[in-house]
């Protein structure tokens, strides 16, 4: 960059832009700072204090959190959360891309009504189907296993992602697929060799969103997991706050900071692909 007069003049709105962004960021990250600061507050300040900084650095919150919950180590909790999240990611990527390809590119009867039905499934509040779903999983003998969290993902029940990938596939040029067809590829080889590699960015988007959302999910895990040995981090977090006896808010905050680390790392590792992926996804209404 040469330091000419025009460059300086052209630069000043850019500086203003950065200043503006940093200011907005400061406001936005303040609650996150509060979260981290609270995790270091002693018990009598956690909820009572309205000051950002703790009066003394209470590291005992982290000592308690690092011990996990009764009979279950922190490592085990991490492992369980990770197993479920990774399983969900694999399931969603695989099944949603299969379904999306059919909706985006193949012809079959009732395609219109089925697509509309898929979109409609996003609209029903899930509390209404919680009990019937529980009965199904109970009949399948899957209660107190990870399957109720993972199996639905392998069956493409997350319509949001099917929709997302469909929209992405619409933007892909057909010429490649047609060329593959002329070369004698069947629909399966065309999908595996041509379409999937091109869809990779959308699949990464699906993977990241699935990972974050599954990691943070509480409701499904609460209903289906019985033994503490199978508990996840989000479930363990809740055990710190029991309104009928004594609560331990400090360790709860400490553990939620610890629980954040994997998703932060996961996001930082993949965020580059996230935007790249979305940029190519040709999301259209």
């Amino acid at each position, binding site marked *: 960059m040469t330091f000419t007069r025009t460059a300086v003049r052209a630069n000043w709105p850019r500086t203003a832009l950065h200043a503006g962004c940093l200011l907005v960021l400061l406001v936005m990250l303040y609650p996150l700072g509060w979260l981290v600061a609270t995790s270091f507050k002693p018990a009598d300040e956690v909820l009572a204090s309205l000051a950002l900084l703790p009066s003394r650095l209470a590291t005992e919150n982290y000592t308690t959190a690092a011990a996990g919950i*009764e009979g279950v180590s922190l490592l085990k909790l991490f492992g369980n959360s990770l197993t479920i999240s990774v399983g969900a990611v694999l399931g969603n990527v695989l099944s949603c891309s299969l379904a999306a390809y059919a909706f985006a590119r193949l012809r079959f*009867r009732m395609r219109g009504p089925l697509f509309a039905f898929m979109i409609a499934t996003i609209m029903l509040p899930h509390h209404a189907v919680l009990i019937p779903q529980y009965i199904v999983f*109970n009949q399948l003998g899957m209660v107190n296993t990870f399957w109720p969290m993972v199996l639905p993902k392998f069956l493409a029940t997350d319509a949001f992602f099917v929709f997302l990938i469909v929209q992405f596939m619409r933007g892909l040029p057909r010429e490649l697929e047609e060329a593959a067809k002329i070369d004698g590829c069947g629909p399966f080889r065309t999908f595996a060799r041509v379409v999937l590699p091109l869809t990779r960015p959308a699949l990464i988007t699906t993977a990241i969103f699935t990972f974050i959302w599954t990691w943070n999910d509480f409701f499904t895990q609460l209903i289906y997991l019985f*033994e*503490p040995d199978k508990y996840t981090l989000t479930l363990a977090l809740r055990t710190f706050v*029991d*309104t009928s006896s004594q609560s331990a808010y400090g360790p709860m905050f400490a553990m939620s900071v610890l629980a954040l680390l994997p998703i932060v790392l996961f996001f930082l590792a993949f965020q580059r692909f996230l935007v790249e992926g979305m940029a190519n996804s040709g999301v259209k209404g």
Partner: protein
Amino acid sequence: MRRPITLAAMALALCLALAGCGGGGASTAADSKVTLRFTWWGNADRAARTEKAVAAFERANPGIDIQTSYSTYESYKQKLATQAAGGDVPDLIQLDYRQISQYAGSDVLLDLGTQRKALPTEDMDSGLLKTGQVGGVQYALPMGVGTQALAYDKEAWRKAGLRAPKPGWTWEEWADALRKLKAAGYERPMTDPGSMEDWFEVWLRGQGKRLYGADGQAAFSAADLARFWAFTSKLRKEGLVSRAEDTTQMAGSVEDSPMGRKRAVAEFNWDAPSAGYEAMYGDRLALAPMPAGPDGTPGQYYKPSMLLGIAAGSTHPREAARFLDFLLNSDAAADILGVDRGTPVNGRQRTRVLPKVTGFQQQVAGLQESLEGKLKDPPAAPPRGDNGLQSTFQRDYDQVAFEQASPREVAEDFLTEARTELRP
């Protein structure tokens, strides 16, 4: 012919869902070990004690394996309801007083009379045993007891020149104490008790009335409730109890209540959970009996802090009963559990445990001792539908406290809802 494919796929799916039972019956394991599932709510300390007790029981009964599960109270209620609806209730369940009618009335719970041999109840207080009965049948056994209390800051009390409240002090004396606290510089010294059905019940019983009648319907009138709310509203306007903005933030735990947030120096609570104030008040924390009616009639009572029951669908009721017997009657369990689930109902366990308590638990024991023989029998378990009403009560009181409607209007609304909600 495409349609058959779709139909076949759907049929297959349905078959899978409906015929899946085959894979589900894994509990009939090849080895002869009996596995029981035990579910309860509580915090980490209770978890540690419970695991220890379970381990002790398993050592003494090598043929029985107990699988435990715990969560917090709010989560627990929803999880258990879902399990009940799904026909998947664990063998051993911990229940709240408010859940008994629902679970007993819907045949979720086993009649414990069928297991009398394995599970004797002679050492338990007969008045308290009744709290686990519905229609004369013992469906659950109380594990511990607690009572309503006033938790307060001794320091503030001393500065206002007040003496520690004695059993039998009245609601008017309580209000006067608040006035003295205010005069001593404590603005709004007390948490507004108007939002909790629990404290309304104490007030009501102090006048010789009851929350629920034998028919399972509300036994008080809109005028009763309106008077209670008018009383608390008057105190609020006098600046003696917390503002609506603070009262509304109570979500059940000590930490989000006005006293927990250090905006008040006194608050009604149940005795054992008041331990939560210790982190903020330390030695200054004290417990006192609840105010009584104008003629000294006590409103508070010994309430089972939790009960234990066996699922009607349990395939091993005898083993389950043996475990309950261990928890509720044995010295070993008493030594491990202490007063964690409330003061033991079993007399032998109580005499064994009470001398050993320390710290805040001594205050709880002291309060209960001071009330010994003075309280009336606890009411029968609340009828079905009461669970939803408890939160409606708090919701409705918001309207009173924020002065969106008069106590009388809101009280009428509450009773209308109570009539449709209660399902005796």
